[in-house]
Structure formats: structure tokens, C-alpha cells
């Protein structure tokens, strides 16, 4: 068996040759020097931390990370024109995409955010009972946890959800403002003051290792709705799940969203707070978040 030379992220070789490959012991990355690009090509392992913005990081990697500022998953060069219907939206990690489709009345719209006075003028994807198709479908196994995290703004009088199964929603903030967990399974009032409707908030939908499912509003603010379903789910769609007539819909803005499934589906308290710190630094929320 051959063994790679090792280094750490702060002790990488200063004069590497093209194709040099090392294993980075502090980040669990494999790195290869690319002479043409004069850069290290980095390959994450499942144990590598996930760098959110150069300041905040997670101890685990999301299965998908969609950022409205990076529709191509890398930078802003692939963003649609302001006000245009959405094109395929690529995850910043892995190969997952939220695909556009050919039914124009149900396509969400990309907004560059410059006309907005909130969230630091960052771009968002606007849904008005619209949807995108997940490929591959993010799937949580039976008796396994998951977390769906996002920054989004619910319309006044509207409803809100991020991802849905083909037939049932996972989480749904009704037009009556109640939290609904799973389909016809649990619904109750959210915590006082939530969800916000004229300001984006952090949404975190979690099924923990006890199979208790809750919606966390803007950090550790929890309503009384708790779902306890244990089955597998495939989150086929971003946006509405049922036919429009049933309206399990997303009506509002999605700035960013991440999906964590199965073995990494339940985030540690440290990671939950790292996500909050990251979101606070990036989105300039009017209301303070509540730490876990």
C-alpha cells in the first residue's frame, strides 16, 4: 500500500511540483498541486469541515448548499438576469441541482436584490407557488435524522416551505401562520413573534435522532408542533409539493438553503450556532437570532 505524504493546512509545501499530492491531516482533504492554475486542487473527505465564508465553518459537510448569489454553485457569473425566470440552480458542494422546468407559469424568478432594502441587498430566488425539481433527489432513510436549513422571507399572508416530497410537505408554514409538521400530522402555533413576514429569518427544520421533528425559527425558537414520523423521505421539489389547487406552497424569498441527511442529519449545537453566526454576519437581520 502506498502512503501519501502529509501536511496541515498551514504547512503546505512552498514550492510544489505539478501533480504533487498530499493528505492534509487537520482538514482531512486530499490536495493536488495544479501548475497551470498555480493552485492546490482540494478534495474533501466526509470528515472535512465545511468552510462557510472563510470565518465560520461546520464540522460536517451539507449534502447540498444552494446560494442565490451563486446559481452556478461557484460564483456570480452564471446568475440569471434580474427578474428573469430561474435556470438550473447548482449546489455549492456535491452535484445536486434544483432544476428549472418548462412550465413557465410555475418557474420561480431570480432577483439581484439591489432594489431591496433588506438582507444587505443580497440576491434571492422568489417563489410564488412555483417549484424546481431536485436532481438527484435528496433522500433521508427510515429512522435517520435530517436538517433543512435556510434563510428566507415569507410573504405577508402567504405560506412557506422550502422542500417537499412529491405528495406531502415536510414542513409548511400555513397562511394562518401555524407550523405544520409532515402531512396532516402535527400543527400548532409557532413561537411568539414568528414567523416573520416582512423580514427574512433563519428556518431550520430538523428531525433529530429521537425522530422528533420540529421547526426552529430564527435560531432556537420553537413552537409546539412536533412530528414523530420515522419513514424515509425524498425531497423531490424545492417549492410546492401538491398540485397548485392544494397550495402546499412557497410564497416568498429563498436566499440560501442547506440540506443535511442521515449520518450528518442532526447538527451539533456548535454547528447550529455556527450557521446562525454565519447568517447574522451575512444577512444583517433586523431581529436578533436566539442561540442554541
Amino acid at each position, binding site marked *: 500500500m502506498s502512503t501519501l505524504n502529509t501536511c496541515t493546512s498551514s504547512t503546505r509545501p512552498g514550492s510544489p511540483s505539478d501533480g504533487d499530492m498530499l493528505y492534509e491531516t487537520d482538514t482531512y482533504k486530499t490536495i493536488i498541486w495544479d501548475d497551470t492554475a498555480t493552485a492546490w486542487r482540494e478534495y474533501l473527505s466526509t470528515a472535512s469541515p465545511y468552510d462557510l465564508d472563510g470565518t465560520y465553518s461546520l464540522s460536517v459537510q451539507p449534502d447540498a448548499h444552494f446560494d442565490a448569489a451563486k446559481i452556478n454553485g461557484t460564483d456570480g457569473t452564471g446568475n440569471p438576469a434580474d*427578474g*428573469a*425566470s430561474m435556470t438550473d440552480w447548482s449546489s455549492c458542494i456535491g452535484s445536486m441541482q434544483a432544476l428549472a422546468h*418548462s*412550465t*413557465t*407559469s*410555475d*418557474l*420561480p*424568478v431570480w432577483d439581484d436584490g439591489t432594489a431591496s432594502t433588506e438582507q444587505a441587498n443580497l440576491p434571492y430566488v*422568489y417563489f*410564488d*407557488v412555483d417549484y424546481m425539481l431536485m436532481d438527484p433527489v435528496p433522500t433521508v432513510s427510515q429512522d435517520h435524522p435530517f436538517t433543512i436549513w435556510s434563510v428566507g422571507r415569507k410573504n405577508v*399572508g*402567504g*405560506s412557506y416551505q422550502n422542500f417537499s416530497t412529491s405528495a406531502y*410537505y415536510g414542513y*409548511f408554514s*400555513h*397562511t394562518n401562520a401555524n407550523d*405544520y409538521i409532515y402531512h396532516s400530522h402535527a400543527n400548532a402555533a409557532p413561537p411568539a413573534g414568528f414567523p416573520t413576514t416582512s423580514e427574512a429569518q433563519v428556518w431550520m427544520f430538523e428531525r433529530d435522532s429521537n425522530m422528533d421533528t420540529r421547526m426552529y425559527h430564527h435560531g432556537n425558537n420553537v413552537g409546539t408542533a412536533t412530528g414523530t414520523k420515522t419513514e424515509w423521505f425524498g425531497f423531490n421539489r424545492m417549492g410546492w409539493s401538491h*398540485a*397548485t*389547487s*392544494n*397550495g*402546499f*406552497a412557497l*410564497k416568498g424569498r429563498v436566499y440560501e438553503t442547506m440540506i443535511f441527511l442521515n449520518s450528518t442529519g442532526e447538527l451539533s449545537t456548535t454547528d447550529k450556532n455556527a450557521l446562525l453566526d454565519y447568517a447574522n454576519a451575512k444577512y444583517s437581520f433586523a431581529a436578533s437570532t436566539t442561540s442554541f
Partner: protein
Amino acid sequence: MKIVKFPSLAEAELEADRLITALNLPATYKYGSPFQIDDGTWVLKVKENGSWPATDTIRGTIEDYEPEA
């Protein structure tokens, strides 16, 4: 969201087909599918924004509609 009501499914489908041409949609694209609201009426969703807004093109009376769970 906004909708337009039609007397029948057939008329709603006819309008959805007309919008493909009227909005100059790309080949293989369609405008949308009619659906029934709670009172049984067939309707089309009115797309208000994006690359192919229908607000000024769709025939019929545009109404507000808030789908319920």
C-alpha cells in the same frame, strides 16, 4: 397568487395553449396546466413576473387566490 377562472376545463386548456404562442415561449415549453379550485372552477395561474409574465396577455378577469392546505 393570481388566477383567471374559466367556464370549463376545455376553455382553460385552450387559453393555456394560446399563451404558448402569445408569450412566444421557447420550443417544448408550455405555459401551465389548468387546475380546479375548491368550488370546482377550472382556473389558470397568472404568472406576474419572470421571463414570460402573462398579466397583460392572458384573457379573462384576473383575481387574487390564496390556496389553502
